[in-house]
């Protein structure tokens, strides 16, 4: 795509910020190596279309080019939750598994990508390479050139259960600030939370959240919606996500509002898993 094409797309987006033209524009910028600009376009698009799988796929590709493979993985994972047959997301995750040496999972995703979009660039060749590598175990740790991003790693594994309330989220992003585990009575069990001015507010927030827990349970029951699974809130300066790792506990995750709710849900899922393991160990 030429610079003139990019100018045209930029003008179209400026004229109609709600247009989906941010998708080809972001991709064009990425291909030209203008990664910061591409990331801004993708994030702005996601603000308007947080449930659009293509937008998460675009951001994932930009993040992959920036070397932030963990976030890229998360974005592709979100894209697949929104659209389980998304070819781009299967392709991206397949390549990440490939360079991480998990060839069976790589093959599974690459074949899904191929099935969803048989004409997708490079996928058929990648499937063939992985199949070949699986047949020749000696090559499994030596990915074929050109098939993958330069380096890759799987997302951070969950930490083992640890004793001590503050260690419940050890190893997770925001383990000491931005993640809070409390019981049904609003007493903080682990994690911590600070206000923007640095004041510790974990205990005060936990006390209020016990009421949210009760109200959410009552609302879901009375409206015949089944059990509640999460409460998400967006403020002008932060996004927050609440879920219940166990029937007697509540988990709060707070991030600044540049982190989309979908990503918060993923992080909360990991934190909830860590909390469950920790609570089982503490029982």
């Amino acid at each position: 795509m030429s610079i003139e094409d990019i100018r045209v797309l930029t003008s179209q987006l400026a004229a109609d910020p709600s247009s989906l033209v941010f998708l080809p524009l972001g991709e064009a910028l990425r291909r030209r190596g203008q990664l910061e600009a591409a990331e801004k376009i993708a994030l702005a698009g996601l603000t308007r279309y947080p449930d659009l799988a293509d937008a998460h796929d675009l951001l994932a590709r930009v993040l992959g080019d920036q070397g932030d493979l963990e976030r890229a993985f998360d974005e592709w994972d979100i894209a697949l939750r929104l659209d389980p047959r998304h070819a781009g997301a299967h392709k991206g995750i397949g390549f990440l598994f490939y360079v991480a040496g998990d060839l069976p999972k790589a093959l599974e995703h690459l074949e899904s990508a191929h099935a969803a979009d048989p004409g997708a660039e490079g996928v058929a060749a990648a499937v063939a390479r992985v199949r070949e590598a699986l047949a020749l175990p000696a090559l499994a740790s030596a990915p074929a050139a050109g098939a993958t991003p330069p380096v890759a790693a799987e997302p951070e594994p969950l930490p083992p259960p640890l004793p001590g309330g503050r260690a419940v989220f050890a190893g997770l992003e925001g383990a000491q600030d931005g993640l809070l585990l409390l019981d049904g009575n609003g007493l903080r069990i682990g994690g911590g939370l600070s206000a923007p001015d640095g004041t510790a507010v974990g205990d005060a927030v936990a006390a209020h959240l016990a009421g949210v827990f009760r109200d959410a349970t009552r609302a879901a029951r009375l409206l015949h919606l089944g059990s509640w699974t999460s409460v998400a809130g967006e403020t002008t300066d932060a996004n927050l996500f609440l879920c219940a790792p166990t029937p007697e506990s509540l988990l709060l995750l707070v991030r600044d509002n540049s982190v989309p709710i979908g990503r918060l849900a993923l992080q909360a899922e990991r934190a909830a898993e860590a909390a469950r393991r920790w609570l089982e160990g503490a029982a």
Partner: protein
Amino acid sequence: MRLDIVGSLESITRVRGVRGAMIVSAEEGLVVAESSMEGIDGAAVAALTAGVVARLGRATEAAGRTAPAFVHLQAERGALLAVPAPGDLLVVAVTDAAVNVGLVRLELRRAAEHLA
């Protein structure tokens, strides 16, 4: 004004998967206007939504943050979505589990802007 409000609510209920939409007084938890709330207890929705939003607001205030501009309660078989509007109001939608949340949020915000 009344027609505008009803029109805004109908824009919300036109989104596939939305079972009903309403405007609620945030403080009292009472119904101000509603659309397509068949089979749903509007009074319960109003009271419960106002309760959840108020409590979440107190939690975000304790955290030194601003009040929520969007609240999404997800449950197994559906969701409750709310956006504050001027005049101490809330625009609320009750949805099925399979709904485009982003689209509903957009319509809720439009309706809230209409109330300004």
